[in-house]
């Protein structure tokens, strides 16, 4: 048997791209890493494997704790981590969701081609940057008051539809039709709502961005047809989350859990894994608050998408409907959801935590929107500013291997502090424009340096592993044209 060891953690090779950390000590279940040899080397470089084995200590952990091919060190639970806990006798962990609840990605299609945009990139990137709030303190597209925030938390994209920021087709192409039915706005603190009021419709900063892209490759014609994607087509990718409102909600519940369930916390190897026992008052309250934050994040991305339609109207002097600017899909990659999965031959309701991992349900699954049920759920995997992004579809093997999940991006390779020593923001921007025809505009040069293409893993390799494992199948590849960030 082939084995590898990193910092005292031994992995056994099960088959190609599948590595298992056997159960030992206080681990409740084994852990698995889904990675090629080269990705495993990177994953073994930091504390990812330690955090993954820590995650197996969560009460009610079922099957295995799993690290996706883009996994890397986070806080508490690793980024790229999937953990399913029993919804009746287990727990729900805010730390295993992350601070940016429903951080995610959506892709909007157009009927424009690269030729329609070429030569107008500067105008487009300037206009997007001027009209889509980004960075810190830039406000939001909607000037929110408390009733607005509470309506968004309660009704999600239904609110946006009522207010003229969405059309019915947007809801039909979003998970849960853009509204989590379990949302409880009253479980979200006043502090969190205060932070959300002036951030509704804003990108934020860090690795969040809006990117105009062109489709460069199509790998599965039938699925690409169903998704409405073809070579040379212009699409828009939006990556952001629930902003300060979501961050505050996670913080609030971590502290409440620490104070009320310190016995459970004391048995866990990392305080950041703080978990509320299933069925407890705090578990119910956190789930309701998290679902409300999911609604907030969907509306956040919806507002940015609709504003982008308006920017395109001005730049191209045509209505957005005539440019067929339709939502392809919206995926969350920091989330916990109650889902029913088959475990040891029996159906069980689980809290599936995906932290830096994307749901990847295959064709035929009843929770895939009707528009895509015959081909599988779209999955959007953003790459760096200098690399391609991918559209995948939920793979047949995902339900058995990963509780219906796959990767969420390229995965970081280099720390932000090192990135600022290695790269200079203006140089990165100049090189991307002059050598790769990618136009970037950011609030802060430091953000560009921290997000330089060289700080990320090889997204092609991440997607190759996902495709070969059959958890998320390659459908199309896109390449950046314009990028704005905070």
């Amino acid at each position: 048997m082939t084995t590898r060891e990193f910092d005292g953690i031994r992995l056994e090779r099960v088959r190609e791209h599948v590595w298992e950390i056997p159960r030992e000590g206080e681990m409740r279940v084994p852990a698995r890493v889904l990675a090629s040899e080269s990705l495993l080397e990177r994953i073994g470089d930091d504390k990812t494997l330690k955090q993954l084995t820590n995650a197996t200590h969560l009460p009610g952990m079922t099957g295995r704790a799993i690290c996706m091919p883009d996994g890397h060190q986070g806080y508490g639970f690793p980024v790229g981590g999937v953990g399913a806990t029993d919804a009746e006798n287990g727990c729900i962990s805010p730390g295993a969701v992350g601070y940016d609840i429903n951080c995610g990605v959506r892709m909007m299609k157009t009927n424009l081609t690269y030729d329609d945009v070429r030569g107008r990139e500067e105008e487009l990137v300037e206009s997007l940057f001027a009209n889509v709030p980004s960075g810190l303190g830039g406000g939001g597209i909607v000037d929110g008051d408390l009733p607005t925030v509470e309506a968004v938390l309660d009704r999600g994209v239904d609110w946006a539809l009522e207010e003229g920021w969405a059309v019915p087709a947007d809801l039909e192409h979003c998970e849960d039709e853009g509204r989590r039915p379990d949302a409880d706005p009253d479980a979200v603190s006043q502090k969190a709502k205060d932070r959300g009021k002036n951030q509704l419709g804003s990108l934020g900063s860090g690795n969040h961005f809006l990117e105009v892209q062109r489709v460069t490759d199509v790998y599965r014609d039938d699925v690409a047809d169903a998704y409405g994607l073809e070579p040379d087509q212009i699409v828009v990718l939006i990556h952001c989350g629930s902003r300060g409102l979501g961050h505050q909600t996670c913080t609030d519940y971590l502290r409440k859990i620490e104070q009320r369930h310190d016995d459970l916390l004391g048995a866990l190897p990392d305080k950041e894994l703080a978990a509320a026992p299933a069925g407890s008052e705090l578990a119910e309250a956190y789930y309701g608050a998290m679902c409300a934050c999911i609604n907030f994040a969907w509306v956040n991305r919806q507002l940015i998408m609709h504003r982008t339609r308006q920017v395109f109207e001005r730049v191209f002097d045509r209505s957005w409907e005539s440019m067929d600017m339709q939502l392809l899909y919206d995926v969350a990659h920091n989330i916990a959801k109650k889902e029913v999965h088959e475990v040891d031959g029996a159906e069980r309701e689980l809290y599936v935590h995906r932290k830096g991992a994307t749901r990847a349900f295959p064709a035929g699954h009843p929770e895939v929107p009707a528009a895509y049920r015959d081909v599988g759920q779209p999955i959007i995997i953003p790459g760096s500013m200098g690399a391609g992004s991918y559209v995948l579809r939920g793979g047949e093997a995902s339900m058995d291997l990963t509780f219906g999940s796959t990767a969420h991006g390229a995965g970081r390779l280099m720390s932000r502090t090192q990135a600022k020593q290695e790269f200079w923001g203006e140089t990165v921007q100049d090189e991307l424009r002059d050598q790769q025809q990618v136009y970037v505009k950011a609030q802060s040069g430091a953000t560009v340096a921290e997000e330089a293409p060289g700080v990320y893993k090889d997204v092609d390799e991440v997607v190759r592993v996902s495709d070969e494992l059959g958890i998320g199948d390659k459908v199309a590849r896109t390449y950046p044209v314009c990028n704005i960030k905070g």
Partner: protein
Amino acid sequence: MSFELCPHTADVAVASHGESLGESFAAAADGLAAATCEEVPKTGERFSLTVRAEGREALLFDYLDRLIYERDVRGVLPVDNEATVREADGEWAVEASARGVPLGVIAARDVKAVTYSEMRVERVDDGWETYVVLDV
């Protein structure tokens, strides 16, 4: 008092030192500001805050969380932090102040939250040290 920004694959860590516990907290808060913005002008009004918690680590967590909240709600970056920590009957309190630099005059990035991951608050020979990972 002093701080250092330390490498972390996805986020940023701050290591701080102070002769007193309060100074080490204030230095961690200055590290939070440095992780947000490189160049800070000399503008902005000072404001005060008091935070209470059940222990030293919880107090550092809540203090930095409060500064992030004030940043978002007041629209200012808290810099030049000063802090005094006291403990009475098992309750810990930090009385602090900061200069709030309007976000509109700086190029700043979002630090999302403070985490407990790898957090340390330790007495050392010449004072106190803290270590905290910030979610970026």
